[in-house]
Every structure is written in structure tokens, then in C-alpha cells.
């Protein structure tokens, strides 16, 4: 096979591995966007904060890995619920721009807290779930990355099932017609808390699973080494900001397109990966602004 062909397959493999993280972030972004009509700037910081929680429990306090992982998720979910209670709910009558600024404020607050609490620690490393890796012709996926893909698959299936369950239907009802939802007796506030809790859980999974891939510091999953906020947002745009399955597909495609920047072909181009992403997003917005992965009748 030609070198280019082999490089493309490698880009696809690595792209899917990296894209799994983007997909999880995108799922959270889409979920919240459907509920509030707002892009949640804090989505990736749910992940970084959860990662800090898991790291603190495991490395600083010496707790077991699984318990620490769970603790990190709890920290992330608590942050999501607090965001709803302290920012989203009080601002529910405000404009979307105000809400957007509100979520940015949440992200900055979280980043500030992370810097403040961990100012002394220069390099933080979250250990992997398993240290194995698999050398192949097309890149060397680590166990950590394969587990991440498996978690994404499980999460996608769980979400699809959930949206067919009574509470999943109630969420959709509240998103589509809040007044009518209230009139059939759905507590729209509980639904809102539920949505932010799930979104934060998705962010938390992304953060704790991505953390071990590199060293990390404050703002890791937003703008740091794990930077998944922008790719996650792009994936959500590909999903028309509303399709859950589209967000997953979008995340994987964004991961792939980003890897195309690593082709030998582009070795002389500085910042080729970022450029590939922006060119791709630009093309999508030009030719199919409603999104690529949008099922005609969007239910979940």
C-alpha cells in the first residue's frame, strides 16, 4: 500500500481514539444546547474539574483507582448541578448572551480554583487505568485509549436507551414545549437539573479518561494539552447542535480531520492540524450550515 494510504488509515485510527473524547464533550454540549439554547463554555471544565478530583483522591489521598474515578465524576456532577442552581436557573429569563457569559464565568472560576489549589505542583500525572499498548502498522493505541472508545460506545447506547425511557421523554418534552411539559405535570426544574447533571457526567468521563494521555494542569480539557472544547464545539456544530448520534459521529470525524494535519504531505506547514480543522469547519458552514450529521426526524 502507498505511504499516503497507510498514513490515512493511521489518521483514521488515531482520529477515532482522540475523537472519542471530542464526542463525549460534544454530547454534553448538544444536550445543554437543546435545553437552554446556549453553548456551554464550561462543558470541558466539568471534565478538568472531575480530573482534578480523581487525581486528588488517587494520587494525593491514595484512594483506589475505581473509587477515585467515581469521586472525580461526583465532583464533576456537583459542579454541573451548582452551575444550574447558581447561574442557569437565576438567569433563566435573561438573554442567551447573558447565559453564555454566565457559563464562561463558570469555566473561568473553575480554572481559577484549579490554579489556586495546585499552584505548587508543577507537573501532574494521572496514572492510566492500564499501561498496555498495542503496536500496529497504523499507530499504537494504548489500553487507555481503547477503554475510552469502549466507554463512548457504552455511553452512546445508554443515552439512546435513556431518551426512550419516561424521564428521557420528559426531557425532550420540556425542551420542545416547556409550558405544556409543566401542564402535564413534569417538573421542568428537575428536568433542567437532570440535564446539567448528565452533561457534567459526560464532561467528567471525558476529563478523567483523557487526563492520563499526557501531563495536565489547570484548564486541561478546555485549552490545555487535552484541548477538547473547540473540537467538541465543532463536532456539535456538525450535529446541527441537536442530534446526539450526530455529536458522536461529529466527534470522530473531527478527530480524523485533525489527524490529517499530521500527514507527511503537510510536514512543512506550521499548525497544520488546527488549520485542517478550521478549513473543514469553514467548508461545512459554507455548504451545509445546518450540520452534516442531522437525522431528518431528530428524537435523540
Amino acid at each position, binding site marked *: 500500500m502507498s505511504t499516503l494510504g497507510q498514513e490515512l488509515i493511521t489518521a483514521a485510527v488515531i482520529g477515532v481514539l482522540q475523537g472519542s473524547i471530542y464526542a463525549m464533550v460534544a454530547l454534553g454540549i448538544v444536550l445543554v444546547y437543546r435545553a437552554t439554547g446556549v453553548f456551554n463554555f464550561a462543558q470541558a471544565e466539568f471534565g478538568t474539574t472531575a480530573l482534578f478530583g480523581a487525581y486528588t483522591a488517587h494520587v494525593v489521598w491514595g484512594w483506589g483507582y475505581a473509587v477515585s474515578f467515581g469521586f472525580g465524576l461526583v465532583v464533576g456532577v456537583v459542579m454541573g448541578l451548582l452551575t444550574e442552581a447558581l447561574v442557569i436557573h437565576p438567569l433563566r429569563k435573561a438573554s442567551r448572551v447573558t447565559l453564555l457569559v454566565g457559563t464562561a464565568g463558570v469555566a473561568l472560576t473553575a480554572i481559577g480554583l484549579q490554579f489556586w489549589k495546585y499552584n505548587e505542583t508543577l507537573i501532574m500525572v494521572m496514572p492510566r487505568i492500564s499501561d498496555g499498548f498495542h503496536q500496529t502498522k497504523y499507530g499504537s493505541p494504548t489500553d487507555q485509549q481503547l477503554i475510552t472508545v469502549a466507554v463512548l460506545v457504552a455511553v452512546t447506547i445508554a443515552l439512546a436507551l435513556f431518551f426512550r425511557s419516561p424521564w428521557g421523554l420528559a426531557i425532550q*418534552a420540556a425542551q420542545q414545549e416547556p409550558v405544556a411539559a409543566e401542564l*402535564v405535570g413534569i417538573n421542568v426544574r428537575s428536568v433542567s437539573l437532570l440535564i446539567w447533571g448528565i452533561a457534567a457526567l459526560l464532561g467528567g468521563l471525558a476529563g478523567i479518561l483523557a487526563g492520563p494521555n499526557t501531563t495536565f494542569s489547570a484548564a486541561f480539557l478546555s485549552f490545555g494539552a487535552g484541548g477538547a472544547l473547540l473540537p467538541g464545539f465543532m463536532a456539535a456544530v456538525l450535529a446541527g447542535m441537536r442530534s446526539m448520534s450526530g455529536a458522536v459521529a461529529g466527534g470522530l470525524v473531527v478527530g480524523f480531520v485533525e489527524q490529517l494535519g499530521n500527514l507527511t504531505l503537510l510536514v512543512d506547514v506550521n499548525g497544520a492540524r488546527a488549520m485542517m480543522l478550521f478549513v473543514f469547519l469553514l467548508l461545512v458552514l459554507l455548504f451545509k450550515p445546518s450540520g452534516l450529521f442531522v437525522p431528518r426526524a431528530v428524537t435523540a
Partner: protein
Amino acid sequence: MAVLEVQDLVVGYGQFPVLHGINFVIEEGEVCVLLGLNGAGKTTTVSAIAGLLKPTSGEIRFHGKSLRRRSPSARVKDGLSLSPEGRRIFPRLTVSQNLRLGAWSKRRDTRQARQQLDLVFGYFPRLAERGNQMAGTLSGGEQQMLAVGRAVMSRPSLLMIDEASLGLSPTLARAVWEATAQIARDGTTVLMVEQNAGALPFADRALLMEKGTLVHTAVGDDIRNVNLREAYLGA
């Protein structure tokens, strides 16, 4: 005992009062129609009863108990149900899903919900044929049937329907009113809101509303009185 008692009800938007102290009672088993022109305050009245609007003053009692501190969802559980103006069905859910959500307040009793679903399909056979269709793709008349059917799913003791006839052909409007009359015969007390006098033959009693006050109550033959329609509805 009266199902619903409304006493000196004042409701406004901001500082601006829309209802100026209205009084009426709805008795068990009757079909009552609240008639009035655009802007008379009919929707404001039923919204306050359903708990979507907070009254400035006055009292609403349901089966003798004050509703003042009851949330909208608590009122549904109590047996008060509103099919809102403009239908407000869940457009990207199927017809069956819309109906299932109508029984949300009593979702633990799945057997009852299934029985209620059969009942609704009996009132509106067209909905049964379209169970798996997205609600947003239904025709206007079918959407109205769905809105009423969804409101019936919670097994209310008082069913309020805000302008079922809006935007429907006379034939379709009559079909919806006939189904409403059947629902009432099966034991549900009904309060219809209408500006269409065509609903009068389906009601036991009419309350006429003008600019935020009740100006007349008609019962029996009076309802079918042409002068009354001319006087209050210009119809």
C-alpha cells in the same frame, strides 16, 4: 360540592390588570363554556386556574381546597388538566409518546395509563391510526385532538380546553366538541374556552366574558338564544 370556585379573581401582567375580580362556580358533571371576544381575558383565567399565572388577589378553590400554594404539576396530580391555547403538543415526539406524557403525573400506575390510552383512542380514532407519527406532522385538527387527548390522559376531574376550535374547519371543530361532550358524559367536568358560538349547543351553561369581567351567565334555552349571541359575540 362545586368542583371549582373562583372568587374575586384579579390577575394582571406586571402592573396592568386584565381580570378585574371575577366570580364563578363550576358544578360537578356540567359542561361550561367561557365565551368572549379576543382579549376578553379567557386564556388569562384558565392559565391562573392551571397555575401558570399568579393571581394578584382572589381565591381559587378546587374541590373545596385553596390552590394558592399548589404548583402547576401538583394541580395536575389533584385532577385539574388544561389543554392549552395553541395546542402546544410536543412536535418531535410521536403521538403515542405525547399521550404517554399526558399521564406523567400518574405514571406509576401503568395499567390505568393503558386503559386511559384506549379511552382516548376511542374518543379520537384518528389518533390511534397515527400512534407512531411525529406529532408535528399531524394536521391542525389532529393536533387539536392530540392536545385534548393528552390532557385527558391524566384522568382529570376537571378538564379545561382553551379554544379547541381555533383554526379548524366548522366540521372539524364540531368533531372536537362532540368528543368533548362524550368525555363529559363519561364523568369528567368540562370548562371550554371559546370565542366561537358554535360551541354553545355542547354546553350546559355559558359564562360570557367582556374586558376582564363576567357579564352574563346563560343556562338552558337561553344558551340557544340568538339575541344573546348578537348581544355579546356579534355573531
